[in-house]
């Protein structure tokens, strides 16, 4: 339908759309490190924030690195506001999932690989504006599973440069 990745194939059946795949994984392998909380209200909050990340983060980020002039400035402002909103939601917790990594952390952490690219193209420092957010990102990267699988920010910058030239 979408001709996009990721696609998860389990028992010969394909599942598409990353957050839907994450929920599927959480349901099938429910006895190991649950990503979603068991309480329905907390689950609804996790889903709400993951949905917000999905809707806001990537499209705004794209405008920061590919945009120019006024649009880029507006996008930078929106991105900072988005990160501040997420900081508010994080509060004093270690992760969005509480003491352990959860659904929202998983939804959001890949986005941080793009920060180096945003900062270079947008000429600004995310750490200066949103230190709490960067602190959270660093905590996530302490997890071996995340650190090993996330792409190198330098590679992403190179990739973006290549796209911009076309």
């Amino acid at each position, binding site marked *: *339908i*979408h001709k996009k990745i990721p696609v998860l194939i*389990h*028992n010969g*059946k394909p*599942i*598409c*759309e990353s957050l*839907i*795949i994450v*929920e*599927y994984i959480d*349901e*099938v392998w429910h006895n190991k490190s649950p990503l979603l909380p068991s309480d*329905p*209200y907390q*689950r*609804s*909050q996790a*889903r*709400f924030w993951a*949905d*917000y990340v999905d809707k806001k983060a990537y499209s705004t980020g794209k405008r920061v690195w590919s945009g120019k002039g006024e649009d880029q400035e507006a996008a930078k402002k929106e991105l900072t506001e988005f990160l501040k*909103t997420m900081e508010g939601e994080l509060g004093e917790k270690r992760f969005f999932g509480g003491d352990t990594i959860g659904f929202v952390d998983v939804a959001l952490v890949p986005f941080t690989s793009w920060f180096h690219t945003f900062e270079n193209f947008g000429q600004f420092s995310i750490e200066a504006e949103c230190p709490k957010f960067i602190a959270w990102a660093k905590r996530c990267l302490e997890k071996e599973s995340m650190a090993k699988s996330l792409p190198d920010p330098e590679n992403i910058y190179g990739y973006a440069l290549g796209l911009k030239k076309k």
Partner: protein
Amino acid sequence: QLLGFWASPFVFRVKWALELKGIDYEYIEEDIFNKSSRLLELNPVHKKVPVFVHEHRVISESFVILEYIDETWRQNPLLPQDPYQRAMARFWAKFAEEKLLEPAWMAMWSKGEEKEKAKKQTIEALEKIEEQLKGTQYFGGDDDKIGYLDVAIGWISYWLPVWEEVGSLKILDPEKFPRITAWKIRFLDHPVIRDSLPPKDKMLQYFHKRSDEIYS
């Protein structure tokens, strides 16, 4: 408590879910063009309806609310039990939202090339949905009862014809989409759905006005 707007298809998803499960609730009408301070307080991120309040817990975003309702009130389950079928229901609901609802809305109020493009996108998406109804009465799983996906895309049965009329479009052609047409009739005839719908002339009036406002 459900905060809603009488013409919003998103609000109706939540209404239908609550009614299908026989849950008592208080409905509060919001004027979305003059939002109450309460709404803005309850949904500061999106500032939209529907907003669902249950025992001081506030939830926004219609699909998120549907899942909460399904998990909290276990009778007449909306989502199937099997994880794969659940993933499929969620996938198609998201697909219909992005590829069907958004272009259909755009097709209604836009003009010229933009309108044609949106119309084409809507029809293509509808074709995929038509395929999903192979021989079942509803979009549900094996038990073939009304469920999550029916509620998620229920707007096709009533809002789409209104938008077609307002936008002078022909999208849901019964000859091209026999299964969806049959589903539409069945859905609209369901006791919970039938008695909940706002009057058609009011809808036409409202969407005509909105259409003109957006275009200018």
